[in-house]
Every structure is written in structure tokens, then in C-alpha cells.
């Protein structure tokens, strides 16, 4: 299968994302001004600081021509993974519910966290059992997940919470310890932790690879 990794001015994790994807298929970069997604089977919106996080993180990037195509791709059921800044972009684009706010303690956090998988129907979770724990790093200043109470109730009831920070490990004050959410259909996943940084035993964990492998499994 072929992965496409979007690249905005200010993206910084697109190379790691390409490498992670290439361990679960083939991968290429997609430039943000190009509406042609090049026939990819899945899209990653990577981490970084697109457009310098001007105005709000993700607010400008979501207007890009490539993102219009990603919205169509997602509506047609294509798998889309937003990581960190990519998660912020997907929320700003309305492809995922909620928003990411400044970390509760105003600090940029950079550390390994444990994520608990939640019962949810998504290709990204295909190889992961509910209740399993994954070790994946976070690195962000604006990762406090927020959704208004009525939205929160809907996504909790609808099985749209994909990952929670393990008890006591919430690094940013996210409501309900939420680390990652899905769209209603389950084909779009956004999360603050960086699975693409956890694909090689050299850096301590290969748990992140399982998200990419889950999608690859659906294409074999």
C-alpha cells in the first residue's frame, strides 16, 4: 500500500512519518499546495508547527489545497492519521470533533507516555486490543483536548475515543485523559502522541508501528 505524508511550511515530523509508513508499505511526501494526492491509500498529516502556529495551531494549514483533497478522501472512507499538529489541523478542518488548547501548566511536554487503547472500530486499531497499553512519546505545548460537554458525551457514547493517557500520565490536562479521537466512521484518527517516533527499538519502543501496520493489514 502507498502512504502519503503531507508537508506544510513548518512541518517538522514528516520525515519520521515517511520512515514509519515505509515500514508498513511505501510512502511519499505530498506538498500542501498540490491538490493531487497521487493515488495514495492512506494519508498522514504530520506533526510540527505548520505556518508557525499563527493565529491558532492548525488554523491556516487546514485551508490548504491539499487539505481540501484530504477532506474528500476522508469522506470517501480513506484512512487519515493526524499526529500532534496534524491532529490540530484535522480538528480545525472539522474532520474530527473538539479542539486542542494550551497545556494546562503552560509547559511544553516532551516525554514517553503510556496510552491505553479504547474499544473502537478503526483500521488504525485493527491489531490493538482494547485495554492494551502502548508506550509512545508526546512533545507538544498545545495538546489539551477539549470538547464541549454535549460533543464529549456524543464521542464517548459513539466509540470515538481511541486512546487515553494511562492513569496519572495525562501530560496536558486533556478532558477525560483523551489522547486520540476518531471521526464517526472511524477512518480518521487524530492523536497528540507520536507513533512515528516509536517504530524502532533503538528509541525504546516499537508500539507506534502497530497503528501503521493495522492499516496496512486492511490493504493486503
Amino acid at each position, binding site marked *: 500500500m502507498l502512504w502519503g505524508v503531507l508537508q506544510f511550511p513548518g512541518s517538522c515530523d514528516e520525515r519520521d512519518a515517511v520512515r514509519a509508513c515505509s515500514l508498513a508499505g511505501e510512502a511519499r511526501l505530498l506538498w500542501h499546495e498540490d491538490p493531487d494526492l497521487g493515488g495514495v491509500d492512506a494519508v498522514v498529516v504530520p506533526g510540527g508547527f505548520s505556518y508557525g502556529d499563527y493565529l491558532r495551531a492548525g488554523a491556516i494549514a487546514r485551508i490548504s489545497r491539499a487539505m481540501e483533497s484530504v477532506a474528500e478522501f476522508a469522506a470517501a472512507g480513506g484512512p487519515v492519521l493526524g499526529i500532534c499538529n496534524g491532529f490540530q489541523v484535522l480538528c480545525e478542518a472539522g474532520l474530527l470533533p473538539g*479542539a486542542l*488548547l*494550551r497545556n*494546562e*501548566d503552560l509547559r511544553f511536554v516532551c516525554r514517553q507516555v503510556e496510552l491505553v487503547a479504547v474499544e473502537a472500530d478503526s483500521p488504525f486499531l485493527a491489531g490493538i486490543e482494547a485495554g492494551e497499553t502502548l508506550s509512545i512519546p508526546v512533545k507538544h505545548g498545545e495538546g489539551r483536548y*477539549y470538547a464541549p460537554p454535549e460533543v464529549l458525551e456524543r464521542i464517548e457514547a459513539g466509540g470515538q475515543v481511541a486512546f487515553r493517557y494511562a492513569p496519572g500520565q495525562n501530560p496536558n490536562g486533556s478532558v477525560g485523559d483523551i489522547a486520540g479521537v476518531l471521526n464517526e466512521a472511524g477512518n480518521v484518527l487524530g492523536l497528540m502522541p507520536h507513533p512515528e517516533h516509536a517504530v524502532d527499538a533503538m528509541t525504546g519502543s516499537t508500539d507506534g508501528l502497530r497503528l501503521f501496520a493495522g492499516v496496512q493489514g486492511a490493504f493486503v
Partner: protein
Amino acid sequence: MKARVLIRPKEGILDPQGKAVERALPALGFDGIEHVRVGRMVELEAEDPGRLAELCSKLLANPLIEDFEIESIDGA
């Protein structure tokens, strides 16, 4: 029309920037300051002010987490 758009975190949403400012004030001798909220201000000139609210809710503010208000500053 010259306009000023004021954007602030919605009531009820924790504003850690406001809290940090609030906590810093007593050290400078400013006591009795409460409920500090930090937002953003955008100034612009619009040919068609009729579309300003739409522009604010689509880009300048995220209505999920922020309130905005538009002030005319013509002749100011």
C-alpha cells in the same frame, strides 16, 4: 470600515495564560486582581463589513473554544 476583532477564551474554559498572569501580579504589588483572561486582538480594514462575522467564525476565532466581538474603529 476599520474594525477591531476581540477574541477571548469562552467562559468556563480554563485559560492557563490568564491564571499565570494573575499569579504573577501580587509579586509586583498588585493585589486584588482576579479573573484575568488573555485573548487576541486583530485589526483589519474591510470593504464589505457585512461578511466580518462569517470571517471571524471561519478563521479568526474557533467558535468551539473562543468568543469574538467586532468593534468599528472608523474615525478613532
